[in-house]
């Protein structure tokens, strides 16, 4: 979604995985030869005792997207994510971060990359029980040799970002599961990495906390977009957080695409089986169908009625979303409303954008179900903005988008 935005962001490949294999066992080369001959995983295991963990995985991850790797247990997704920071050594293939192959890197360079560019959140939190929350959060910085004052300052900022500043001096065993994982997240954010690996990060949490953490991730992502690789076995989670999803089945990547792509055109029965009992109109809430493809105007000094109008003209749109610098939704302007507003202005008057807001555009909250969306979207002249609990703009839903989603759910039901 993010990379199809109309603001002219360029796609940039952050992480690329090329023909990666992982074979567990005593003679991986021998098993590789069998894999090359096209023998399947079960036969190789039966005859050699070696396990093909990941087989010929290739995909690119774009900068700033949340890339979900989904599969059942044993599908190789945890192995896959550990090869992205070389916690597990691939048997063959390349993993490139910004074009540099980390598999062929020296230990020293690898450690540098791990300290600076890539960090990880674990399913069982993996906090150090002997350290306070603050020390845990500063762990990566301490490892990199950052001085105490500096690392505590940065760790505090990270704790603040996940809302745990008050617990800085607690020990992990004094926290609830959700709080522990916030610390895990803060620890990963404190080093300010460009890539965040999350291995079933929310799977150990109960459903309510889990949703809360997903929202937290999306909020953090809206503040500063990192490249996130998110591992999960849960479809709902994948749909909620993922910009794109890769589905793994017994070590192979069977499909990569946006959630919509995967629901609409599942690559095989395995992928389809994930959605068998799923009614799209229940799976999706407003958040999921909202698109970031609307033109946006940021309310700030110098963004006059005239400037807004020319921005709409430049992009050939007839309406735009206005939000402030914190992405809080303010209103919708259209070419028509701007023109009318401009006519009433003197030549040297900058004008107030607020005066040009279109009245009859409702806003809907992120959790609104698709069925409840019908009425507001149908009656609104322009795409309906979707906002989260804090009033932040998440995207907009046009009639076309809604109809497309609904028609897909009809197909599924048929």
């Amino acid at each position, binding site marked *: 979604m993010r990379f199809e935005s109309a603001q002219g962001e360029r796609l940039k490949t952050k992480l690329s995985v090329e023909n990666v294999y992982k074979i567990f066992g005593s003679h991986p080369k021998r098993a590789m030869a069998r894999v090359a001959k096209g023998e399947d995983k079960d036969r190789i295991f039966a005859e050699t005792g070696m396990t093909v963990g990941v087989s010929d995985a290739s995909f690119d991850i774009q900068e700033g997207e949340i890339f979900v790797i989904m599969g059942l247990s044993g599908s190789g997704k945890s192995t896959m994510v550990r090869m992205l920071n070389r916690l597990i050594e691939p048997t063959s293939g390349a993993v490139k971060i910004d074009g540099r192959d980390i598999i062929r890197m020296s230990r020293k360079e690898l450690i540098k990359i791990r300290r600076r560019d890539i960090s990880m959140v674990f399913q069982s939190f993996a906090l150090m*029980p002997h350290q306070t929350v603050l020390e845990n959060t500063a762990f990566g910085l301490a*490892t990199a040799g950052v001085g105490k004052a500096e690392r505590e300052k940065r760790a505090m900022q990270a704790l603040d970002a996940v809302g745990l500043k008050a617990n800085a001096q607690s020990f992990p065993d004094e926290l*609830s599961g959700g709080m522990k994982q916030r610390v895990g997240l803060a620890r990963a954010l404190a080093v300010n990495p460009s890539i965040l690996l999350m291995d079933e990060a929310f799977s150990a949490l109960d459903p309510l906390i889990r949703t809360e953490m997903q929202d937290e991730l999306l909020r953090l992502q809206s503040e500063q977009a990192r490249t996130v690789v998110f591992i999960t076995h849960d479809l709902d989670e994948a749909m909620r957080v993922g910009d794109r999803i890769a589905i793994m089945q017994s070590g192979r990547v069977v499909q990569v695409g946006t959630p919509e792509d995967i629901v609409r055109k599942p690559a095989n029965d395995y992928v389809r089986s994930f959605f068998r009992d799923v009614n799209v109109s229940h799976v999706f809430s407003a958040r999921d169908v909202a698109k970031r493809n609307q033109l946006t105007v940021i309310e700030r000094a110098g963004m006059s009625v005239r400037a807004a109008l020319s921005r709409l003209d430049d992009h050939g749109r007839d309406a735009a979303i206005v939000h402030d610098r914190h992405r809080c939704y303010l209103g919708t302007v259209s070419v028509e409303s701007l023109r009318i507003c401009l006519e009433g202005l003197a030549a040297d008057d900058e004008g107030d954008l607020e005066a040009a807001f279109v009245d009859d555009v409702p806003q809907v909250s992120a959790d609104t179900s698709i069925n409840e969306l019908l009425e507001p979207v149908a009656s609104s002249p322009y795409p309906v903005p979707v906002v989260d609990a804090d009033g932040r703009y998440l995207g907009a839903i046009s009639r076309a988008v809604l109809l497309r989603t609904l028609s897909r759910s009809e197909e599924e039901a048929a």
Partner: protein
Amino acid sequence: MSLFQVANDGLWQRLSDHLIVDLPIGDWFTLVVNFMQAHFDLFFSVVSSVISFVADNLTTFFNWLPAPVVFIALAALALWRVGWQFTLFVLIALYVVLGMDLWPATMDTLGLVLAATIAALGIGLPLGVLMAKSDVVQAIVRPVLDFMQTLPAFVYLIPAVIFFGTGRVPGVIATVIFSMPPVVRLMNVGIRYVPSENVEAGKAFGCNGLQLLWKVELPLALPSIMAGINQTIMLALSMVVIASMIGAGGLGDPVLAGIQQLRLGTGFQGGLGVVILAIILDRLTQSFGQRRRRASVFSRLAKMFGSNSERPSAG
């Protein structure tokens, strides 16, 4: 019946004549020991002087300390780490030791145990780390440890006497060998059983080998390591008593005198002294195995004065 007897006598006799070879392992061992004694003289004298320096100084130091100072120091440790009940026990127990006129012997034993423990930990802790890091080292060291632990304790005394004569030094050396296995084993196990996700977390955040050991593995293995240290100290104490047979001195002397001269009372008093020292050392070292909190002193004080801990509780 007779057939069986014939077969048994004749066949077995003939078989055993051919198959069973005399294995004078004891003689070989003697040869090895003699050879080492003849050719590694310098090594043994260096070891001997280091050990005697440490052991002599420790025993002298504890004997030089006035009894009230020992009372206060141990009581303070007991209060800090364990609790007031145990503090009371420590005070009474030490008073009993004084009353039995075993104070110098007890201080000797304490010095010997500490000297032996320091040496055992100095060798054992790094060895345990190596063992945890390498399966090859583990495969070699493990049977050696089994051997060290199951060989009867008295047997250590013989080569110790041959290499180092009688007195404190061979006593401490026999004690080091006897008491080292647990700390090596528990260091090994402790590190190997650190949760894999914690190790992965360490690596994922860019730890090098030494940082991983220092920041993740040792702290998480600490309870296991402390259990090993505790056991090592306990074994050292029991061996030091046995080592009085070769003149190591200390609390073993009254026990030995009790056995040799059937003086029940003397033997019992010596035994009681050992038990008291054992309980004090055991409880104190055990308390360090529990995870320490920097806040613990304050929260304990706070608890003492009846106020609630100010640390936020789990939400």
